[in-house]
């Protein structure tokens, strides 16, 4: 497999950055990373997950859709879409990589979301195998192997070298473009690192999380479970869990009067908000219990029902660490689990 | 009516002569009223009408003791003393009008006159 030595990694970054924009996770504070546009001298973050997931590059928090100008009686519509430039997102973990396949199912199925498609085509995702999973990780529960991430190009690190394995057409093209900086290397040490990571995964507190009592067909018994009241009583109804989640894909479309025309834009929406899906007759889910239930039912029941069993959650653990009152999907799954 | 001379005096004196309501209080309180050919209120009115020439050539220009009682008492904040000073400067700017020749000084000296007075007089009244 092709590899590059650790100390020449930054040269590779400079090379990529010269051709297209490159985003890599950088430590904002020790142990909390965020994606930043690569500038020379930036150090790749060791820590695990960024607070905001890589979803932001493909489905940004706010995006302009169209602009209207009203002159007296006639309306003039301006198309303000522009072709996205090529960009590379480096250092995506296995769980985030899986989130793209979930988002693709939503945005790229008929009717295709042209904004998302435009960015998806121009973006190359370079994933990285995990070596130090944290206690909040439970990606194995959803069949994700942290040591073998998907994405366009998979990168494996064994301490001194970074091995590159292309997984898709776009990945192959990427590797060819930087082939001159890579050379062949033996992957013996890699196996040993992978084995160590799998060992750690088994020792994680959330390792044994089962998803068999969830899925498309479990709707009735879960929906009417009395436990939702106790589960959702302390939920504040803020949008943190939905805005840090890599697979949340709900958005709201709004108009803004800029003084010289109306700009229509879409922005993330959270099912936890009181005015989520507020329609002419009002809001279908009026109490926090219903909204709380809607969120986890969508992840664990509705999404699998519509997407042949694939769960809406990738086990990245962000909602576990970011919820102000520590309510999360793991607590829901453990409470609602039907044990034989 | 010498237009730019009047403007020049307005600027240097910084006084708006049009504020005068001709109440005569400055003239009433002026201690050297009798020696003056043009009394303070006339002074201001002539400057307002632009008749600067007679003022420059008149003796009373130098009779003003600049005791500033007219400035103190004027109800409209017109400062006649400053107008007098401005006209004096106009006179001083005129070349050839030498009001104090060197010979006049020794007889005018008296021992308790401060040396500074001589210097300023000499600077002011000679060209």
């Amino acid at each position: 497999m092709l590899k590059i030595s650790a100390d020449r990694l930054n040269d590779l970054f400079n090379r990529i950055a010269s051709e297209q924009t490159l985003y890599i996770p950088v430590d904002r504070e020790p142990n909390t990373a965020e994606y930043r546009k690569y500038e020379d001298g930036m150090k790749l973050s060791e820590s695990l997950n960024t607070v905001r997931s890589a979803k932001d590059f493909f489905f940004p928090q706010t995006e302009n859709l169209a602009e209207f100008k009203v002159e007296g009686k006639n309306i003039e519509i301006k198309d303000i879409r522009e072709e996205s430039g090529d960009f590379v997102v480096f250092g995506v973990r296995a769980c985030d990589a899986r989130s793209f396949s979930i988002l693709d199912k939503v945005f790229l199925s008929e009717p295709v979301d042209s904004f998302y498609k435009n960015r998806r085509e121009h973006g190359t995702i370079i994933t990285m195998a995990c070596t130090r999973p944290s206690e909040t990780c439970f990606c194995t529960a959803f069949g994700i192997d942290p040591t073998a991430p998907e994405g366009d190009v998979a990168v494996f690190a064994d301490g001194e070298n970074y091995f590159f394995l292309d997984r898709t057409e776009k990945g192959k093209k990427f590797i060819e473009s930087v082939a001159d900086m890579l050379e062949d290397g033996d992957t013996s040490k890699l196996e040993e690192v992978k084995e160590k990571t799998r060992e750690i995964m088994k020792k994680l507190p959330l390792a044994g999380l089962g998803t068999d009592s969830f899925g498309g067909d479990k709707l009735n018994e879960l929906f009417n479970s009395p436990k939702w009241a106790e589960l959702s009583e302390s939920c504040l109804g803020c949008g943190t869990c939905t805005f840090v989640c890599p697979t949340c894909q709900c958005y709201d479309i709004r108009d803004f009067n800029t003084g010289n025309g109306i700009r229509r834009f879409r922005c993330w929406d959270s099912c936890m908000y009181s005015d989520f899906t507020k329609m002419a007759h009002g809001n279908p889910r009026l109490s926090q219990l219903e909204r709380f239930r809607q969120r986890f039912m969508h992840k664990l029941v509705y999404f699998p029902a519509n997407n042949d069993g694939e769960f809406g959650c990738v086990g990245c653990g962000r909602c576990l660490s970011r919820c102000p009152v520590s309510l999360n999907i793991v607590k829901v799954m453990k409470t609602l689990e039907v044990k034989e | 009516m010498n237009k730019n001379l009047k403007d020049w005096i307005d600027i240097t004196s910084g006084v708006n002569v049009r504020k005068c309501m001709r109440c005569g209080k400055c003239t009433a309180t002026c201690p050297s009223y009798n020696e003056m050919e043009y009394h303070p209120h006339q002074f201001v009115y002539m400057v307002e009408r632009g008749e600067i020439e007679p003022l420059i050539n008149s003796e009373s220009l130098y009779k003003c003791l600049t005791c500033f009682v007219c400035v103190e008492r004027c109800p409209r904040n017109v400062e006649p003393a400053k107008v007098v000073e401005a006209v004096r400067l106009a006179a001083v700017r005129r070349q050839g009008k030498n009001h104090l020749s060197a010979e006049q000084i020794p007889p005018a000296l008296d021992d308790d006159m401060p040396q500074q007075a001589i210097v300023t007089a000499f600077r002011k009244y000679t060209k």
Partner: protein
Amino acid sequence: MQRIGVFVCHCGTNIAATVDVKAVAEALGHEAGVVISQDYQYMCSESGQNLVKNAIKEHKLTGVVVCSCSPRMHENTFRKAAASAGLNPYLVEIANIREQCSWIHKDIASATEKAIILGRAAIAKVHLNTPLTSMESPVVKRALVIGGGIAGIQTALDIAEAGFEVDIVEKEPTIGGKMAQIDKTFPTLDCAACILTPKMVEASQNEKITIHSFSEVSDVKGFVGNFTVTIKKKARYVDETKCTGCGLCTEKCPMKKVPNEFNMGLDNRRAVYIPFAQAVPKVATIDPNYCMMLKNGKCGVCSKVCSAGAIDYKQTDRFVEQKYGAIVVATGFNPIKLDKYDEFAYSYCPDVVTSLELERLMNAAGPNGGTLLRPSDKTHPHTIVFVQCVGSRCDDGKGKQYCSKICCMYTAKHAMLIREKYPDTEVYVFYIDVRTPGKNFDEFYRRAVEQYNVHYIKGMVGKVSPKADGKIDVQASDLLAGEQLHINADMVVLAAAIEPDKTARPLATMLTTQMDTNDFFTEAHPKLRPVESATAGIFLSGACQGPKDIPETVAQASAAAAKAIGLLCKNSITCNPCVAHSDELMCNGCSACEKVCPYGAITYQDKEFRMPNRTTAVRRVASVNPAVCQGCGACTVACPSGAMDLNGFSNSQIMAEVDAICK
């Protein structure tokens, strides 16, 4: 869909001169919702208003925007016009393109552009106007007159004449004010007391009028038609009901050395006193700063001699609360303090007096019984010099910028009286201009000059210096003769400027009326509404509104009374419909609004609300009493959730205006 009519006024050339009204009308025609946009010469004229009425009927307008002068001028005119055409008056908006656009900009392009923007802002606001109906609030049929001078008395008499209850609050022990101190009045020279005391007696005997003498207004709450006033009746240590005014106590009181303010301190009075013989109410008053009994408990002569047993040393300030429909301010004037004018030696020469002091010196009830004597050595003055405009017409920071209007006339009166009574006395009057505007005024002044040959000299007095021999050297300029005069005078009379009474400023704060920089009350409109203040229900009578003489004061007093009667005769008045209202669904019941409301118009109640899933909950919500609310809007900002909004100036309306302006 809104159907808006835009009318742009030329206002003759006032607007049309610097604003291209045709371009404005044309530009505003394209705004959304505008169905008709035209300009006209005089929108406020009869035909202008008909233009609006016809347009409303013809185009079935739902909103009218008039780009014209300030809404404070003709908002009501256009509202009435719209109402008569069937459109709710509060669907009319005014864009001020005169006072705030055409009059203050010279460049036509920028003025026109600004007028268009102001027009757009008014259109944006009218889109969101809601039809409002004004509420009725009851009128208390009782008036309050603050100040018992001739102005207050005349106003009270006229209001009582119309059959309404009136209270007069006078801070001195007796009503009468400055006029009681005056000897004769110009131009007819009739004696001030003779024409004033009958009115004072009439006021005291009129059962509709109650007089609160020796009292002050301490607090005013409420609004037009519904004022609640607290009157502080200062302790006079004499029971008004018992005292017959016999004056025995005033003779027996041992404390003689009290400077008599009524005679401007020229002579002394006793600690217990009646200001002057014809005082109304004729009741003694004890001066707590001098009475030995009140200060250190030793004496009590007055209570011993008083046959009626009216003296009561334990009396304290009493507070009376009363409701009124209208309030008339008649606080009058005072001469200014002359201590800053050292050039006139007023503060260190007793023979230099002000005109009011001269009035007392010449008055029969004055310090020396009516014969004019020099205060210093009580000798007959042979030469008197009058100095005009002392402290008036000067902006040197010490005096007042305005002309005090009455000095020229009363000085001519004094000169004439002195010359008539003491022909041997020479009278000089130094003046800047003699101003005698009025009926028989100039003839009066010419009589003083021609018949009584008073020496009127044009020129100001520069310096007054008392000499060792008791005479006073007056150094002045004679501008016409062009000389500097030195007059050897026995007395100098200064015509001091007059300023509003010191109690006017705190009173204005209580009444929330406006005042100008000289502390005179600001009238609603200098030419068209001189006797009303901008605050509804508060009227101005006499010198509190500006310097004026007795004829004008009485005229204004009756005008103010007429205005007050106009208000009191209504059973209820329509009040401002632009009041606040709270949206119950969004109200948190946190009572932030209740705390900022200056009128206490907000109350709370627990109401039941339908909550999700067919449950109900009781919530504490605010409700605004539209009759009490005056529409200031403080609550709308104190309310975090925006539940509280204001009719006529709602959040969305103001934001729409902001958007239109910043477009």
